[in-house]
């Protein structure tokens, strides 16, 4: 396709030369031509995480990072948002899901931390540009307090240093004036304010604010929201409207997302049937199987002794009618996932994994 990229470029230039200088239509046309129809250009590229191996090489751990969004990221703010000692991430994308907040789950599994705030006295107090060096067994590591670096990103005025297994570390600051000052030794997992000229680190208190647990990927509704009536196929491939309130029949409703290739989904079908049979709740299955596989799935459903209602994806889109896509992103939702609804269709609980042994 680069032949055509080159063509586009040439064409762009030709057209550009024909256009009058100052044509504000140019930008719109330029962007429009490429992207209006939904074409990608270096699209579907995931954000990257490279972990320093300490031997001069880096491991590309993007795939297991959990922060490898396929969205087109631009700005990033890396800081300890929840004050648990590790560095979390906030990413700003150009479209769709515009913002991403990623909670670091490593904690102190691979090392302790020192958090540093600075106050300069011989230059502007925020100490922008100060270089802080933490020394421990793995050698010194230097970070700069910077506001405005990367691309359109402004980091917060706090530095987080990892200590590995070191119980303590030395602290040194090169202040914006160029003066170098030692702050002696700090112990692991301390938060310290370094005031220029004080020569001694001043601890400050933790201010924990735990970030909430994640919702299942791809779920578009959260607890407290109402599940609308939506279109699905029944096992005979007829379109049906799934009405949570009607199906609940005055009882709590378990909406179970499952798939025939998902082992734990198939294993728990009898448990779900038992729940239905006990009579206190209603259970409805929503198969995520591809339309080509729905008969196979339906057969398996019966073989596992399940007889509660089960519906399938593949109902055609229609104006003014909700589809399952408005509730979940089918490609991203992990299964099994079960939404527990009130009789009035409000999500009261989200169960990730099998209902009897949730994650």
């Amino acid at each position, binding site marked *: *396709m*680069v*032949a*055509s990229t080159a063509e586009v470029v040439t064409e762009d230039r030709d057209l550009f030369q024909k256009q009058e200088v100052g044509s504000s239509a140019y930008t719109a046309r330029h962007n*429009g031509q490429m992207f209006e*129809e939904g074409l*990608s250009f*270096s699209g*579907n*590229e995931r*954000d990257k995480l490279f972990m*320093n191996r300490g031997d*001069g*090489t880096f491991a*590309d751990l993007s*795939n*297991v990072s*959990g922060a490898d969004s396929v969205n*087109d990221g*631009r*700005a*990033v*703010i890396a800081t300890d*948002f929840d004050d648990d000692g590790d560095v979390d991430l906030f990413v700003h994308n*150009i*479209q769709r*899901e515009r913002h*991403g*907040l990623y*909670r670091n*789950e*490593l904690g102190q599994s691979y090392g302790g931390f020192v958090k540093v705030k600075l106050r300069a006295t011989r230059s*502007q*107090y*925020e100490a922008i*540009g100060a270089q802080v060096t933490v020394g421990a067994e*793995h*050698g010194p590591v230097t970070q700069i307090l*910077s506001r*405005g*670096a990367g*691309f*359109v*990103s402004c980091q917060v005025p706090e530095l987080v240093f*990892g200590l*590995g297994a070191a119980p303590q570390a030395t602290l040194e600051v*090169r202040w*914006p004036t*160029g003066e170098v000052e030692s702050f002696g030794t700090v112990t692991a997992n301390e938060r310290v304010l370094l005031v220029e000229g004080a020569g001694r680190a001043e601890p400050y208190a933790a*201010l924990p*604010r735990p*970030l909430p*647990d994640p*919702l299942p990927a791809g779920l578009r509704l959260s607890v407290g929201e109402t599940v609308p009536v939506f279109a699905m196929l029944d096992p005979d491939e007829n379109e049906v409207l799934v009405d949570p309130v009607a199906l609940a029949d005055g009882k709590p409703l378990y909406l179970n997302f499952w798939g025939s*290739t998902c*082992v734990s989904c198939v294993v728990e079908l009898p448990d779900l049937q038992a729940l239905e049979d006990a009579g206190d709740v209603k259970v409805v299955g929503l198969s995520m199987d591809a339309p*080509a*596989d729905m008969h196979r799935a339906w057969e398996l459903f019966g073989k596992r002794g399940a007889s509660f209602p089960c519906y399938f994806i593949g109902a055609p889109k229609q104006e003014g009618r909700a589809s399952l896509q408005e509730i979940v992103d089918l490609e991203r939702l992990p*299964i099994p996932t079960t939404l527990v609804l009130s009789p009035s269709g409000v999500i009261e609980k989200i169960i990730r*994994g099998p209902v009897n042994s949730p994650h």
Partner: protein
Amino acid sequence: MISSSGRRLVLSALVIAGIAVYIFVSKRSQPEPTASVEEEQSSGVVVTLPTEIKIEDPEVPIELVEQVEDNTEEVANRLLDFSDKLRRRDFTSARTWFTDDFAGHGLAGLPVQDKRTDRVDSKVVSFDASAAPILSADDFTEALRDLMGPWSRVESVLWKTKGAEFQALGKKRWGKIKLFISMMGAGADDEPITISGWAYARAVKIRGEWMFDRFKLTSLSEARRSATIFSDVTAAAGVARSGIRFGQPGNNSFAWNGSAGGDVDGDGRWDLFCTGPASNVLYMASESGHFGEEAKARGVARPGGGTGALFFDFENDGDQDLFVGQVGWRESNGKLGGLNLQAYLNEGNGRFETKSDDLGFDEPGVLYSLTAFDYDNDGFIDMFGCGYGRVEVEHNNSWTQATNGSPNALYHNRGGERFEEVAESAGLLGTDWTYAAAAADVDLDGDADLYLANDYGSNRLMRNNGDGTFTDVADQYGITDKGNGMGVSFGDLDNDGGLDLYVSNMSSTAGNRILGRLEEDIDSEIFKMLKKLAAGNSIFLAGEQSFEKLPKDAGGVGASWAWSAALADYDLDGRLDVFCTNGFVTGDLPHDT
């Protein structure tokens, strides 16, 4: 009459000729070894499987680049549609991409060749591709079902065309395709799994559609970890904002992507400001770990359309003020349109007053990233704005050293009362297409120098001369990093106490794919552009008055179209790591340029 000895001679000659012909014929056709397995396919066709998968190179390959690329693009798009079927785990449909006489290496059940543990206990398993079972089309797709079926979700599947050669002669249209395959998802316990590898496939065009009749695996590996390193808490924490797709009316500028972190209300928690198309967003952190959107209530919602944003204390009155870059434009009458840089002054309580008109921002620029630093050490924080190009007026006049970028701005903070724009006298005006900057005292002489990442050209290290002027010394320091600079960050990546340099650049798969093919026969200017498109990020390690580029194979730089990098120690092991945003524009269609 031929003598008996003469007859023997003729016979011998015939035998030799026959052997030669046999050798010639067998060399040409290379029949596959005797089939050992017969299998009936779902279609009813009985297929005999070879004992070895061979995909020959086209004898007479298509040479014309445009034709090769047209064919490649067709095959690449076919494979993306196939990828989409796999992503939906629609294995039954995926089967239809293969001919009934298909034979290929299955991707499940391969013997393990090597296992290793990498950082933070991530596991990498390499499989022995040479021992992969040879399967029919039915069994090949069933093996994919075995592989991905048990996953709790499939995040993505990409079978990407990395190279292709097509046969020019003959009735049958076919080609040998080099593939990178990747399947990402989460296992039954939500543990991240990525299976990736390299393969060759033979594509044959049957009734106008590319199908596949051979698949030869050359490598396969699996990366996994017991859980992801980060959890996506966007929606749970209240910072989910969905925006319209890029390219649609209302979202067609590259500008609105900045973020700034800071403590807006002095409660010790990090709040977040983000620029947006129509209005901005201010997420205020609460003690519960949730964020509340309060841009309007706190007076920073308007105007939208900003680029880079900065928090710092402009007046030294103890609170964080906010500055937002704007991208203006030139009207057809030559006048400048758009907004000046926007200033929001903190009233001390986390509410802001808009002050832009009185502070000395008197001309709309084309400012992307902003950088705060006190360049003259006068105790008041100054601000640098990166001037990009006026794309509505003219394109970059060179792909490698464009000189028609719009000016940078250096706003000298005059005692916390106003700014004075002094880029020209400071020698920072520039003609580059500057996207990003980072300030650091690189030469350790007690004042802040400035590194500029430029699109379509060389980057610059503007050394602070200590007298209000700057001089470019990037060449001397070995950090021009000619290419398409998108971002820059400083951090000590080799634990020697010195600040190293991380530069984000852009790089594209398509650029890489065709680069080799085009070198000889295309216009050199376009070739140069393509070469830039294929470049990656750069790590420069600081030495004495110079930097040394870390070789590419050390890793850490293999992003694609990279933007902002954040250097931090994400596993707290005492070494700085790199997180880098990535990707230019993702459309609705899976197809890519």
